[in-house]
C-alpha cells in the first residue's frame, strides 16, 4: 500500500504539473488540443489523489503498521469508525483529505464550466496550481505513506480526544468548507486573468461559495458540539485560534454572499466583491496553515516544520498574485453607479460588509497577535475571550439592526415614510420583548438590546413571509402550500430569511447560555444529594470497567426536576496506550436548559466530586445552526424558472408585493 500510495501522489504531481504546462502553452499558442489536455489533467489528478486516498484507507482498515501514519494514529483495539476517522486524525492524512476534497470539487467545477468557456482554461490553471502545491507538500513534506523499516507490533492509537463521533465528522465538514473556497477563488482569478472582469464569474461562484459556506457552518457547529461534549469545561466556543481559523473565512464569505447581491443587481462593488473572494480563499489557506504548521503551539514548532514553510510560501504567493492581479486589472472591473442614498439596500449591504470584514479583521488580529508577540519578544501573550467579546458583541448588535432594516429597504432609494410604517410593528415588538425581559429582573444592557433586536428581526422576517403567503392565499392556496411555494419560487430570498432566522435562534442560545450559566462543585458520598437551579441530583454509586486499551470509571446519578427523574452517568476514561485521561460528560438536554455533569474525581471509598453546570437554552444554539444550514441549502438550490405561460398572474403580483424591494 505504501508504494502504491507514494506512486499515486507522485503521479498526481506529475499530472498536475503537466496540466499547468499544457494549459499555459495552450493559452499562449491557442492550441485547443493542449487546453483539452490541461482540462483532462484535472480529472487524472483527482483520480490519482483518489487512488492515494484509497491506499491510505485500506492501510488504516487493514492496520498496516509498516506505514508510519497508520501506526501513529491507530492501534488494534481502535473501533472501526475511529480507524476510518484516523484518516484525518493526523497531519499528513488531513492534508490528503484536503487534496481529495479538492479533487472532487475540481472535477465537478471543470465539468460545470462548459457554460463559461472563456473562463475554463484559467480556472483549470488555478485549480491545477493549487493541486500541485498540495500534492508536492504531500509527496515531499508530509507523505502519509512513509514507512518504518521495522514496523511496531501495534500502533499508538488515535488521540483520545478525537475518539468522538463529532470529531469524526468535524474535519471533513470543515475541509469541505475550506476547500470549497478554491473553486470560486479560481473563478475570480480566471475573470481577472482572462481580462473579462464581468459578472459571468459571479453567477458561477455564488453557488460554490454558498456550498462552502454551508459546510463551514456545519464544521463550526460540529466543532462546537465536540468541544461541549468532550472537553468538559461546559462551553462550546473559547475563541481558540483553531476555532477562529474556521470563523474568519466564514465571516468574509458571509460578506461576499451579501455583496454579490449588490454587484449582480447594480454592478456596484465589483472590485470589493472580488477582493472578498480572494480574502476568503487566503483565510481558508491561513486556517489550514494555522492548524497544520504547529505555529499555534509555538513559533519554534513552526520553525521546525517544513510544511509550515510550504504553506507560508503558498499563502504569500497566492495573496501577492491574486491581489496584484486585482490591482492590475482592477480598472477593467466595472464599478457601477455610486450608492444613491444611505436609505437603500445597497447602503445596508455595504454597512453589513464593512462590519463583517471588521469582525474578521478583529478575529485575525486576536489570533495572530500571540504568534507575532512570541516571535518578537519570545514570550507568548494570549488574547483571551474578553478581547473577542468586547469587539464582537457590538458588531453583532449592529449587524442585527441591519438584518432587521436591510431586507425591507428598496434598492437605490427607500421611501422613509413607507419604511417607517413597515418597521413600526416589528420595532414595537422588539421593545415589548425587551420590556418583558426587563420585567423578569434582567438588567444586562447587552442582553436587553440583543433581545429587542432579535425580536425586531424576527418580526420583519415574519412580516415578509406573511405578505407573500397572504398574496398566494388570496388565490386559493392552502397555508402550508402557499408557504412552501413562496420559498420555492424565490429560494435565494427566502433561503436568506431562513438563514437570518437561524442566526436569531442561535444568538438567543449563545446569549442565554453564556450570560445565565450557573455552576457548582460538590463532593458526595453514595446517597448524598445536591441542588442546582430546578434540579436535585442524587449520587447513586460508581463502578469501574476495563475494556481494550481502556480503564473506565462511571458514576451514576439521578436528576429530579420535580416532575421526572433522569439517570446521568458521567465517566472518567484512562487510555492506557496514550497514558491519557479524558472525561465523558453526562448531559440532560431540554429546550429550557442543559444539566451538564462532569465527574472530577473518585476516591477509594467511592466518594465522588462532581462539577455541575446549568446552561440555559443550549439546544437553541444547535437548532439555530441547523436552521442556518437548511436556509443555506435552500438558497444554494438553482432558481426555478417556470415558463412564462405557466406562471399565474398572481405570482407576478407576489413578486411585486413581496419582492418590490428587489428591483
Amino acid at each position, binding site marked *: 500500500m505504501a508504494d502504491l500510495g507514494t*506512486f499515486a501522489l507522485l503521479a498526481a*504531481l506529475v499530472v498536475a504539473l*503537466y496540466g499547468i504546462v499544457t494549459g499555459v502553452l495552450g493559452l499562449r499558442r*491557442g492550441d485547443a*488540443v493542449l487546453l483539452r489536455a490541461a482540462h483532462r489533467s484535472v480529472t487524472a489528478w483527482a483520480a490519482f489523489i483518489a487512488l492515494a486516498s484509497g491506499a491510505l484507507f485500506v492501510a488504516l482498515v487493514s492496520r498496516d503498521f509498516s506505514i508510519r501514519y497508520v501506526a501513529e494514529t491507530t492501534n488494534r483495539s481502535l473501533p472501526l469508525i475511529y480507524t476510518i476517522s484516523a484518516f484525518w486524525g493526523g497531519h499528513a492524512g488531513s492534508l490528503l483529505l484536503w487534496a481529495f476534497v479538492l479533487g472532487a470539487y475540481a472535477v465537478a467545477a471543470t465539468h460545470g464550466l462548459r457554460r463559461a468557456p472563456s473562463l475554463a*482554461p484559467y480556472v483549470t490553471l488555478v485549480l491545477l496550481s493549487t493541486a500541485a502545491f498540495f500534492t508536492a507538500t504531500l509527496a515531499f513534506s508530509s507523505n502519509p505513506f512513509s*514507512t518504518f*523499516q*521495522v514496523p511496531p507490533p501495534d500502533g499508538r492509537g488515535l488521540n483520545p480526544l478525537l475518539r468522538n463521533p463529532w470529531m469524526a465528522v468535524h474535519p471533513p465538514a470543515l475541509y469541505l468548507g475550506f476547500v470549497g473556497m478554491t473553486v470560486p477563488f479560481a473563478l475570480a482569478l480566471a475573470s481577472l486573468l482572462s481580462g473579462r472582469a464581468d459578472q459571468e464569474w459571479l453567477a458561477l461562484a455564488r453557488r460554490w461559495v454558498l456550498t462552502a459556506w454551508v459546510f463551514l457552518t456545519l464544521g463550526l457547529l460540529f466543532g462546537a458540539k465536540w468541544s461541549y461534549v468532550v472537553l468538559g469545561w461546559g462551553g462550546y466556543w473559547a475563541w481558540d485560534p483553531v476555532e477562529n481559523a474556521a470563523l474568519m473565512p466564514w465571516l468574509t464569505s458571509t460578506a461576499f454572499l451579501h455583496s454579490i447581491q449588490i454587484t449582480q443587481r447594480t454592478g456596484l462593488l465589483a472590485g470589493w466583491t472580488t477582493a472578498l473572494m480572494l480574502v476568503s480563499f487566503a483565510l481558508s489557506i491561513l486556517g489550514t496553515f494555522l492548524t497544520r504548521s504547529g505555529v499555534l503551539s509555538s513559533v519554534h514548532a513552526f520553525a521546525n516544520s517544513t510544511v509550515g514553510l510550504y504553506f507560508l510560501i503558498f499563502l504569500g504567493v497566492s495573496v501577492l498574485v491574486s491581489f496584484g492581479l486585482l490591482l492590475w486589472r482592477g480598472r477593467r472591473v466595472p464599478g457601477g453607479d455610486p450608492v444613491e442614498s444611505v436609505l437603500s439596500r445597497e447602503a445596508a449591504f455595504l454597512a453589513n460588509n464593512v462590519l463583517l470584514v471588521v469582525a474578521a479583521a478583529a478575529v485575525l488580529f486576536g489570533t495572530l497577535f500571540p504568534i507575532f508577540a512570541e516571535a518578537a519578544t519570545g514570550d507568548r501573550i494570549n488574547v483571551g475571550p474578553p478581547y473577542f467579546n468586547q469587539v464582537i458583541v457590538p458588531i453583532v448588535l449592529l449587524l442585527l439592526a441591519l438584518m432587521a432594516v436591510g431586507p425591507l429597504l428598496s434598492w437605490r432609494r427607500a421611501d422613509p415614510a413607507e419604511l417607517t410604517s413597515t418597521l413600526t410593528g416589528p420595532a414595537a415588538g422588539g421593545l415589548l420583548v425587551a420590556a418583558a425581559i426587563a420585567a423578569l429582573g434582567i438588567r444586562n444592557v447587552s442582553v436587553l438590546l440583543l433581545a429587542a433586536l432579535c425580536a425586531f428581526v424576527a418580526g420583519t422576517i415574519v412580516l415578509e413571509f406573511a405578505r407573500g403567503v397572504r398574496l398566494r392565499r388570496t388565490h386559493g392556496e392552502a397555508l402550508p402550500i402557499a408557504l412552501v411555494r413562496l420559498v420555492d419560487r424565490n429560494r435565494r430570498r427566502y433561503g436568506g430569511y431562513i438563514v437570518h432566522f437561524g442566526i436569531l435562534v442561535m444568538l438567543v442560545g449563545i446569549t442565554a447560555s453564556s450570560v445565565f450559566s450557573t455552576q457548582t462543585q460538590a463532593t458526595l458520598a453514595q446517597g448524598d444529594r445536591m441542588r442546582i437551579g430546578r434540579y436535585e441530583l442524587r449520587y447513586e454509586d460508581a463502578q469501574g470497567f476495563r475494556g481494550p486499551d481502556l480503564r473506565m470509571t462511571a458514576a451514576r446519578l439521578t436528576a429530579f426536576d420535580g416532575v421526572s427523574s433522569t439517570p446521568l452517568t458521567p465517566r472518567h476514561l484512562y487510555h492506557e496506550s496514550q497514558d491519557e485521561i479524558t472525561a465523558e460528560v453526562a448531559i440532560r438536554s431540554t429546550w429550557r436548559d442543559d444539566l451538564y455533569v462532569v465527574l472530577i474525581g473518585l476516591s477509594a471509598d467511592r466518594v465522588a466530586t462532581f462539577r455541575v453546570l446549568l446552561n440555559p437554552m443550549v439546544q437553541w444554539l444547535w437548532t439555530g445552526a441547523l436552521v442556518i444550514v437548511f436556509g443555506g441549502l435552500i438558497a444554494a438550490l438553482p432558481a426555478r424558472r417556470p415558463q412564462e405561460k405557466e406562471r399565474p398572474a398572481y405570482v407576478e403580483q407576489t413578486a411585486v408585493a413581496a419582492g418590490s424591494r428587489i428591483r
Partner: protein
Amino acid sequence: MIYALVLILALSSVTSATSAPRTDVAIGLLLIAVDAQRDHLRISEALRISNPGREAVVDLRITLPPASQYVTFHRGLVRPSETDDGFRDRIRLPPGLTEVAYSYALPSNRRATFIRSFPLPIRRMEIVARGRGISLRAGRGQPLAPLAVAGEHLPRWEVRTVRAGEGITVVLAGLPVSRPWLPYAAAAVLAAALAVSLCIRLTRAPARTGGVIAGSQNF
C-alpha cells in the same frame, strides 16, 4: 501467527526435549522461528527449560542481537526488564519443564546474519524460517527436512549440544526487501511519457500568431 508456529513446533518436539538425560538446569529445546518480512525479521524464541532438581530461582539474562526492536514477552516471564543488550528476569523454575517465550524484530536486507547465545546449555536448538525462497543455515549443526505448514515448506536447521554462552551464527539469505525507488521510477516513466507526448504535439502543431485565446471552443 509466528508465535503459534513456535508453539506447534514446541509441542511436536516434546518427546525429544523430555527424553534428554537429567543433569543440571538446561534448555532442553530451543526453538527459533524467523518470519521473514519486507526489510525485517520477526523472530520468536521459545525456551523449554528443564530443571531436574529442586525448585530454583534463576536470574535469566537473554542477550538479543544488536538493533533488535519491539521485544514482546509472551510466556514464562514474570517482570522482565530491558538491559543494554537484551532483557533479564528472575524466574522460578519448579522441578520439570518451564517454558519461556518472547519475540523481537530485527532490521534486515537481502541477507541477514545474527548470533544467538544463551546463558544456559542447550541440548537441542531448532531454527525454522518462513518466507518465499529464503535459505537458512547456522554456524554448525545440520539442516532438517523442511517443515510443511499450510502448504508452505519451511527450511529448518538443527544444532545439538550448545554450551552456555556459545554463539551460534544464523545466516538467512534471499530475504524480501522493499524497493523504495519503484514508485519514483514509475512516476518518472509517466513524466517522461507525458513530456514526450507534449514535445510531439509542440513540434507537430506550430504556435498560432496572436497569443492568448479566449478558449471558447476548447472545452
